[in-house]
């Protein structure tokens, strides 16, 4: 808490931006569907950090509440995403994103 007041919001915002970038780049670079999926989660959580930082800066509880919504959405995405991945792996064990190339694109 002490740290937060002395540092100001900027480092947290920068950290959020860095994490978001790591997630975005990771998604484009990594080929394992599960890791790509984790990168999306990283991006969402970087956004959460940004929301909380702004909420504190603006002294507004709204931004903190948004985080709960985002967490619920992320959880729902996990369910759907793992369902799709399991559906593919059951038909084709050990598939990576490079194997998904029946359609050019």
């Amino acid at each position, binding site marked *: 808490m002490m740290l937060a007041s002395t540092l100001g919001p900027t480092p947290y*915002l920068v950290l*959020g931006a860095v994490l*978001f970038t790591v*997630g*975005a780049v990771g*998604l484009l670079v990594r080929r394992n*569907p599960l890791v*790509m*999926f984790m990168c*999306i989660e990283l*991006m*969402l959580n*970087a*956004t959460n950090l*940004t*929301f909380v*930082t*702004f909420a504190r*800066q*603006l002294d*507004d509880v*709204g*931004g903190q509440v*948004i985080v709960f*919504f*985002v967490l619920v*959405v992320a959880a*729902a*995405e996990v369910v*759907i*995403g793992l*369902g*799709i*991945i399991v*559906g*593919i792996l059951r*038909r*084709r064990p050990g598939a990576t*994103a490079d194997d*998904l190339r*029946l*359609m*050019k*694109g």
Partner: protein
Amino acid sequence: MTSLLFAQLGTPHRIQTPSVAWSGLLPVLVLLGGAVVLMVVGALLPRRSRHSWHLWLTLLIAAGSIGCAVPLWFRVRDHGPLSILRDAVRVDGLALFLGIVIVVGVMLAALLTDGYLRREELEGPEPYVLLMLSATGGLLMASANDLIVMFLGLEILSLAVYVLAGLHVRRLRSGEAAMKYFVLGGFSSAFFLYGIALAYGATGSTNLTDIQRFLATNTLTNNGLLLASFALLLVGFGFKVAAAPFHSWAPDVYEGSPSPVVSFMASAVKAAAFAGLIRVFVYAFALDRHDWQPIVYVVAVLTLLVGSVLAVVQTNVKRMLAYSSINHAGFVLVGVQAASDRGVRSALFYLATYTFMVAGSFGVVTIVGRRGDNRHQLDDYKGLARTEPLLAFAFLVFLLAQAGVPFTSGLWAKFYVIGAAVEARSFWLALVAMLSTVISAFLYLRIVLAMYGGADEADEAAPAVPRLRIPFAARIALVVSVVATIGFGLVPGPLTHASKTAVPKIAAGK
């Protein structure tokens, strides 16, 4: 200890909860409740039956939702928009107009789904449930007046469609399409959410009315945060409407997904995403239109060109239609770019008429795809006019409408959009739009030529190909789409009038 606790509880400490005007949410609630009922009833009854009661129940629920929306439409028209849940949801003409378009998209997709499921020996009420749940998200998105509600609507919409893309469990391409759509959709949602976070940081609120008021009363000394949020939000919307340069998923996902689902993706999902785009950019960021208009301008030009030029080199009809749907998204963007009453009106008209054209087109594709949903090459359409003259005629109508030929709704849609662009003095954009029409007309004529020409080669190939079966429900969808496409082409008045009524007021410029 206990007494202390009770003493504290004893003092009446009421939490103020906002009153909810449930009647305004009825179209959404009917769809949501209907989906749950269908799911439960579907679990109790035999999964496969001779009667397509899943379909009829879906149509009934969708009709009920439209039935709730129509009285609201007149109420909103006469008494102004309804603001629900502390202005987080706003039911106005725009929300109801596009809401009805989305539900019509559900009905057409459901009609196509019935025959598809029987042919592919898939079963169960789940596709219909997912269609309705997805539409719930779309309706919520169209009426959202808060960026977080819009995000939730977007996610409800998208999550259901990811599953629908992977509906055909035995078809590897379907799973691949679902995976690609899911990863890129999640990627774009994260961008969208980061855009919301930055907009929240820049303006101090996620409510669109508050944002607009803040931007009208304050001048930002450093608007870098706001500009970054514009860009990120546009990336999010751009992915959902398949605008270039965020279109790369569309051809693959369209090719791999079950064809009835594609009709839903191209109609309802696009309509919902454009509803969000219009609400956020044209209305909430109305005063900063000089900052975002150039970006949308460039995106629209790219989308129009990519959609028309790359479509021409395809040989797979489903991919051609995917690129043509990118081109159509470009046209709607031309209307959005104008950022005027007339622009929004033309975008609404375009989305409404396009729903029928695209649902009909993919209806034909569903039928011609035959068992396995794999016959989508241009050669598979050779001689269609001879074997199935009525089906070929329906496809002809949809293709000509997409090309913007007179006596179809497509002409008026394109005419209004280009008119709005000219009024906004975007002459070059209007010119590019017309040029892309010419290029994509070539593509549509290629399919038409394949259907009506090439009969001699088809004679030899004919015995190998099983005869087409056109299910009764799909027939209804095709007839409705043809009637709507030609009907709105001959008499565009009612729809033009409705889209005029639907447009809310835009905040005056700086």
